[in-house]
Each structure stands twice: as C-alpha cells, then as structure tokens.
C-alpha cells in the first residue's frame, strides 16, 4: 500500500511520456521565424503584433511564426532567444526592452548562424542582420514643420506652443523633442513653453494641461509626444471651455486612438509611428528565399506620415 502512491505517479508519468509523440519534421521551402515582443501592455505594441500576424498570414504554409511575449522583462527575452536557438529557427525578430540586456543573446544567435533583426529599439550589439524601426528625430521634425506651417509658414510663423513630453528618460521622447525644436528654433516668432514629463500617459497629460491652461491663456498649439497625452490635454481644455481655441497635435497615429481622434476633430494632426513588424518580416522572408541580400548591420528606417482630417480614412483601416 505504501508504495502504491509512488507506483501511480511513476506509471502516470511514463504514460504521459508515451502518449505524446515527436513532432513532425521540417518541410522543404517552409521557414520558422521566432519573434520576441517585449510587452503587449502598450496599445502601439498590440497593433504592432496585429500587423505582424496579418503579414505572416499572407505567407500561408511557407511561414511558421512563433510569437512570444516577454512581459516587459529582459530576462524573458533572453530565454526566448535561447529557445529559438534550440529550435533551430531560420530567423529571429526581436523588439528588445533596452539596448544592453539582449545583446549577448543576439550575438549568440548570430554566431549560431541564425539571422536576427532588431525592431523598433536598437541594441548595443550592432553586428546583427539589420535594424528596422521608425526615426523619432524625423517624426519630431515633421511635427515641427507642420506646426510652423500652421502658425504662418517658414520665417513668418508666430505663436505659442505648449509641449508635453513622453518619459524623458527614454530616447524616443528626447528625439521627438529635439526634432521638433530643431525646426521651430529657427522661427523667432514661435515660443515653445512647457516640456514637462507626461510619462506617455493620458492622465498625466491631462493633469499637466490642466495646470498649464490656468497659467497661460494664450496657447495656440499643444504638442504632445504621443496621442493619448494630446487627447488628455484636449479633455483638460474642454473642461475649461478652451478646446476650440487650441490645436492639438499628437504622435503615433494608431487606428483606435490617434486616427480616431483626428477623425472626430479632437486632434488637428497626428504623425504615424509605423510598426516595424511587417517590413522586417518581409525582408527576412525575402532574404531566406534568396530574393534579397542585406548588408550585415544595416539600419532600415521607416518613413512617417502626417495624418489629418483629409487623409485619416486611409489609416483607419
């Protein structure tokens, strides 16, 4: 009787082992690509994944895409890459959490002969296959140019712009600020005030705007580093009855957020921060199928787009 418990356990384990057989072998002309996404907590990354899945579906049976979510942890992304190496995948896409953490693992994969493409955020290790991402400095400049034209055009622009920054410890926020300033600093008539850290969040953007609108009643434009903060600023202005006097400008242009708010007339404009998944997958597949060669370590920057009421319908689908 005493040993029966152990017997039951051993038998059930052996049973489980026998029941599950080996998996099928790899077929010719089909490719397995592993993708490690840092988090899906942000709406932009959800759209990122959706776009990538849509693109993957167009390849049908030729592609098996493994998508793993790292729950915002570097250590999970390293585990993902190790898993991909074990599975001998044909290519790896990774959107890393930060520059340093995944570098050693990416090198390990490259050394194992697996091409790696780094998406959106760059790594300290640069000898990967390619980097694919948007250029926040260009986006900042595009926003600056748009605001300049809105305020009277090159050399003649005049007005007061209030800026709400993203998390200032992050490079995207610094670049979205620097690009914007690079254009508008040339305009003597334009004053940029504000510049507080809204941490990318709607409620923080709203709180900053609530305070700002009570101190300044001559703001012409509110420029926020992402759409939710611009939307929060609009909410604050509307509560004070000032929403009609101010133009709100955001960045990202997600279908469910920025584009919808442009469509509804809340934001004057938003600037597309394109998701890099589709382009990277396309490049990877073309490379694997021999249609394309990429110079190792190349940077591929995706262009932005100005989304206004005139063209918003193109981006809503």
């Amino acid at each position: 009787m005493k040993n029966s418990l152990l017997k039951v356990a051993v038998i059930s384990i052996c049973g489980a082992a026998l029941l599950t057989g080996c998996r099928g072998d790899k077929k010719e002309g089909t490719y397995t690509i592993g993708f490690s996404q840092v988090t899906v907590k942000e709406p932009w990354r959800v759209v990122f994944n959706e776009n990538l899945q849509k693109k993957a579906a167009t390849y049908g049976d030729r592609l098996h895409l493994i998508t793993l979510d790292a729950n915002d942890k570097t250590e999970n992304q390293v585990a993902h890459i190790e898993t991909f190496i074990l599975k001998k995948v044909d290519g790896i896409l990774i959107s890393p959490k930060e520059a340093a953490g995944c570098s050693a693992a990416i090198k390990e994969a490259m050394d194992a002969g697996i091409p790696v493409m780094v998406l959106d955020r760059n790594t300290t290790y640069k000898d990967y296959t390619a980097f694919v991402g948007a250029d926040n400095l260009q986006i900042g400049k595009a926003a600056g140019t748009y605001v300049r034209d809105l305020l009277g055009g090159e050399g003649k622009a005049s007005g007061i712009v209030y800026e709400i920054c993203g998390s200032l410890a992050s490079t995207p926020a610094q670049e979205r600020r620097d690009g914007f300033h690079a254009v508008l600093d040339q305009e003597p008539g334009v004053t940029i005030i504000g510049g507080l850290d809204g941490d990318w969040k709607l409620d923080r953007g709203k709180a900053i705007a609530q305070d700002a609108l009570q101190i300044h009643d001559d703001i012409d434009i509110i420029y926020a580093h992402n759409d939710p903060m611009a939307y929060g600023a609009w909410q604050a202005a509307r509560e004070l009855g000032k929403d009609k006097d101010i133009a709100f400008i955001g960045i990202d242009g997600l279908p469910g957020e920025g584009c919808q708010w442009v469509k509804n007339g809340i934001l004057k404009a938003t600037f597309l921060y394109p998701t890099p998944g589709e382009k990277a997958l396309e490049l990877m597949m073309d490379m694997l199928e021999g249609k394309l060669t990429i110079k190792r370590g190349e940077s591929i920057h995706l262009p932005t787009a100005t989304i206004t009421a005139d063209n918003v319908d193109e981006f809503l689908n």
Partner: protein
Amino acid sequence: MDNGSHKLSLGGRLTAGRINAAPFLGLLAIFAAGAALNGNMFLSLYNQLNVLGRNSIIALPAVGMTLVILTGGIDLSVGSMVSLGSVITAMLLMERGWSRSGFLMLPFLALITGSAVFGLTRRITSANHLGKLHLPLSFLTGAAAAAAAGLIMVPLIRSGFSVPAVLLCVPLAGLGLGAFSGFFIAKKNIQPFVVTLAMMSAVLGLSKTVAGSGGRIHPIYYDAAGTAGAVAPAGFAWLNSKIAFFGTELVPVTALFFLAAVIAVHLLLTRFRFGRYVYAIGGNEEAARLSGVKVDRIKIAVYAFSGWISALAGVLYCSAYAQGKPDAGANWELDAIAAVVIGGTSLSGGKGSVRSTLIGVLILGYLGNILNLQEVPGEVQDILKGVIILIAVLLQKGGIVQSVKKYIHRRKGEQP
C-alpha cells in the same frame, strides 16, 4: 527534523510522509512532461544549463524569502533590493570618481562596519568585566572601524570597483536596508507586510534616484568602443559564465551561488540553534519568546539576510544582462513567494525547508522553459502559472494525494 528518516529509502521516506511528497513528484512530473513534449531539445545540455543558470539568480531572493516566511513573516521588498543592487553594481564598476552610488555606499558601509565592530567589541569587553569602560571603548573601536572602512572605500570609488569589492560591498547595502525593515517589524511590532511594502516603494525610489534622470539604465561595457572610456573589469563577465570541465561548459557560476546559499541555509536550519529558533518563532512566537528565544534579534537577522541575498542577486543580474537598471527585479518578490509556496513551505510560518524552495524554483523554471519550447502564447502562460500555483497548494494540503490514497484504500477494502 530529519531524525530517523535516514534509515528509510527515498521512496519509503516519500510515502511515509517524512518528506512532503507532492512538490517532489510535481518536479518529476514536470521534468517528464518536458522530456516527453520536447525530447532532446529540453534535455540538451545547452537548455538545462541555461534554465539552471538563469533561474539561479531569481532563486537567491527565494532562499532569503524562505527564512522570512519560516518565521511567519513576508518580504515584499526583495525585488527592489535586486533593483538597487544592480544599479549600484553597474555604477560602481563603470564610473570613476564620485557618483551618486559612491555617495550612497560610503556612509552605508562605514555605518555597517562601524556598528558590527561596535557590537563585537561590546560583547568581548562586557564579558571581560571591564565595568564602565566597556561602552566608550566599544564606541571608539566602532568609530575607528567606520573611519577605516571609509578610507578604504575612497580610492576604490575613485578608481572604479573590482569584482570582489562589488561582491562584498553591494550586498551589504541590502543587508543594512533589510535590517532596517527587521527593526520596525521586531522592535516596533508593525506587520511585516506593511513594513516591507513601504520598503518596496522606498528602495525602488532610492534605486531610481541613484540611477539618475528618473531611472536611467547603466550598461556594462567590457571594451572601450562606444563608451566614455571607462570599462568594467573583465572578471565581472565570469559571474555569468559556465565553468568548463574536460573541455565542456558544465557549471553555471550563478548556480554555484544558488547551491552555496541553499546548502548554507539548510545547515543553518537543521544543524544550528538559530534554525530551531526560526522554526520556533514561526510556530508560536509568544511561546518562543517565553522560553527565552531572542525573537527580535532572529527576526532582524532574517530580514537582513533576505536583503543581503537579494542585493547579491542584483550583482549577478547586472553581470547576466550587462546592465544595472531600476526595473531589474520587478515583481521578483511574487516569483520568490510563488517558489517558496510551490515548494511546500507554509505561509503561516514554522513549516517547510529550503530544500523545498529549491524544488519550487526548479518547477517554476522548467515550467516557463517548457511553455516557451511549446510556443505557448504569453497570456496562456500566465493562466497556466496561476493554475500550477493553485494545484501546488492543493497538493501541499494533501488534497489530491489524500484522495488518491483514500481511493486506493477503498478499492483494496472492497476486494474480498
């Protein structure tokens, strides 16, 4: 607690209930499932060493947590200690001259060394009946030791820390902060949950403050390319390597740290008076106090140890991921608690062992590994982890094992 059991075989000990069988069987089952589902991929040396090496870092706070939970407490601040440890390590290694981490560590280490020497001399001098002289004498030696520690630190901070210096000094920051929690828990009688919740927030804030600009990431570089010039000592990468035997890499260095911690704490719990007191406090604190156990001291010691070993995990994290950053160790307190509970240690204290935590860590580690190999999406992994924790606790209560036993018993009884 092991008395007598050595005469039985492992199977005998398991079924006789001397060892809590459920977690051990759970580990066997998970290992078998991994081998069955993924075959050579799961069993490969590469995979096994990676799982072991990686999970050994997250396992260190779980070892400290075991001691804390055995006394009937909880430590929610371990993740923040990992964070602080990783940030200080990266800064001490990479910066030359006075950075925020230097300013933090200097008074910290001076204070800790000073009070340790003060305590020690007080003990010695009071035992030698030096009368009224012993207090000022202890103060004097304590202050001298603090000054000496400070003097040793200054050139280190100027020239950048070496690897042994980092391994020695950084965990002491955790020790001090842990002792601080322990002081409020033991002397001020505030619930451990509340004190360590407060510390969790405060230490994370401290980590962000030390890191600068609201929480900057501090990467570790081993060559001068792309840096301001300063590089970390090459030996720091050794902490993240695997030791080779006969030309094959076999033992992850992080696993050695984990193993050493488990063995040390196991011996502490089973062979020393300290261990018996830990169990006694967890079982019935008042009874322990009445029977002369210095409850306050033991409690402060376990929280100090928990902080110490968590900050040590921060040093290893910094080596493993070549960076120190404030969000290192985020949510690790929950993983540590999960590992302790899955292993079978009771959250109400007094029951359990550090060996079970070893099993709990391995169960969680293998589970994540298998789910990744099975290409299970993240959201499903989260659900499965929750389910596993619940099953583990059910098994622990004997729920499932008992019902299987009863079933077998009934079947035997029915047969003529």
